[in-house]
């Protein structure tokens, strides 16, 4: 830490008035807002400001002279805050004035051309892309649908969901983003699809999987049952002696995309009646399975 007397260029015996004058003299040259492009001046100004902070306060100066605090004791001085120059350079500074170069812009072809070109670029710059998340019910994602997003800034956006859209897929809606600040085209809306799970359908690639509960009678004797598909119910033939875990394929009943259609896989699940059934009980009690019927013989 430099000696504050040295920084301000005053003698140890300088009066408060001399300290003040010295500080003002330096501040006028070094203030960062009067030297917006000069990083060095900010460093120097900080030194000068903290030296002044120390020497302009009689109590601090006395303690420094007495060796009670060192020069960096003044370092804890309240910072100046952020300088105006950090804001003034940004676009849209309302205080900015073109008075400093208006004559060049008119008279000098090169400068005028450069300015015109950069303004033209700014004018034609597109608007920002906006990101949205769209929750899509499972069946709408499989079959396609039109959804309306209500925009946070008001208004709505119609989104055509193509059939077979996948979870996490991002759709780009050209020109539906933020308007351009100038005359450029608006940005795009980027809509990320979140597919909601279905109560009984699941999707693997372009195939649909579903678990279909059947009664023990349907499992034993076979028969036709109604199986759900993503486009409605279809009649499905259950073969005799079906088991839990047997999977039947419904060709072409999966997800339809441009590449073609997947299949639906129906996994059977034999379900016992929940309530007691005296008839079933008495039948099974009187039934002796043949010796060949031992489901655990492999174990």
């Amino acid at each position: 830490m430099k000696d504050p007397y040295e920084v301000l260029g005053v003698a140890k015996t300088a009066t408060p008035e001399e300290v003040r004058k010295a500080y003002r003299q330096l501040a006028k040259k070094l203030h960062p807002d009067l030297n917006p492009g000069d990083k060095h001046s900010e460093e120097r100004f900080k030194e000068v400001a903290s030296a002044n902070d120390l020497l302009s306060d009689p109590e601090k100066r006395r303690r420094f002279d007495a060796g009670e605090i060192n020069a960096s004791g003044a370092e804890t001085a309240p910072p100046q805050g952020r300088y105006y120059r950090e804001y003034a350079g940004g676009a849209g500074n309302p205080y900015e004035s073109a008075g400093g170069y208006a004559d060049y812009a008119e008279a000098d072809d090169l400068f005028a051309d450069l300015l015109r070109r950069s303004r033209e670029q700014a004018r034609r710059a597109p608007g920002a892309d906006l990101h949205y998340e769209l929750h899509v019910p499972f069946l709408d994602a499989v079959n396609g649908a039109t959804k309306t997003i209500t925009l946070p800034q008001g208004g709505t956006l119609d989104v055509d969901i193509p059939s077979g859209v996948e979870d996490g897929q991002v759709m780009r809606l050209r020109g539906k983003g933020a308007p351009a600040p100038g005359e450029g085209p608006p940005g795009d809306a980027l809509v990320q699809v979140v597919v909601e799970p279905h109560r009984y359908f699941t999707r693997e690639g372009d195939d649909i999987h579903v678990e279909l509960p059947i009664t023990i009678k349907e499992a034993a004797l076979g028969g036709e049952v109604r199986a759900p598909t993503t486009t409605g119910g279809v009649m499905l033939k259950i073969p005799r002696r079906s088991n839990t875990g047997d999977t039947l394929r419904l060709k072409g009943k999966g997800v339809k995309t441009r590449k073609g259609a997947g299949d639906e896989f129906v996994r059977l699940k034999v379900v016992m009646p929940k309530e007691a059934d005296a008839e079933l009980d008495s039948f099974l009690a009187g039934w002796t399975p043949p010796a060949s019927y031992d489901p655990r013989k492999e174990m």
Partner: protein
Amino acid sequence: MIDERDFLQRAHVDQTTLEVWIRESWICPASTTPERAFTDTDLARANLILDLKHNMGVNDEGLDVILHLIDQMHGLRRALSDALASLREHGKGGS
């Protein structure tokens, strides 16, 4: 946005002073809302005005001149940086 009370507190100025600054167009708060609203830029500018007045002994007449020159300088700096950016952009295009 900063409201007026907050602004006075953070800039360490009183109401009367602020009225003078606004009348002199040294500070131009946004007037789109029913109450005055200030930006961080306004706050930093207020700090600069205080620095000029109290730390450098600039009087009001001088302050007006200085602020005007600073505003021109920032306009010039931006025009220059725009022009440089445009030159670079143009250079990349190869034409």
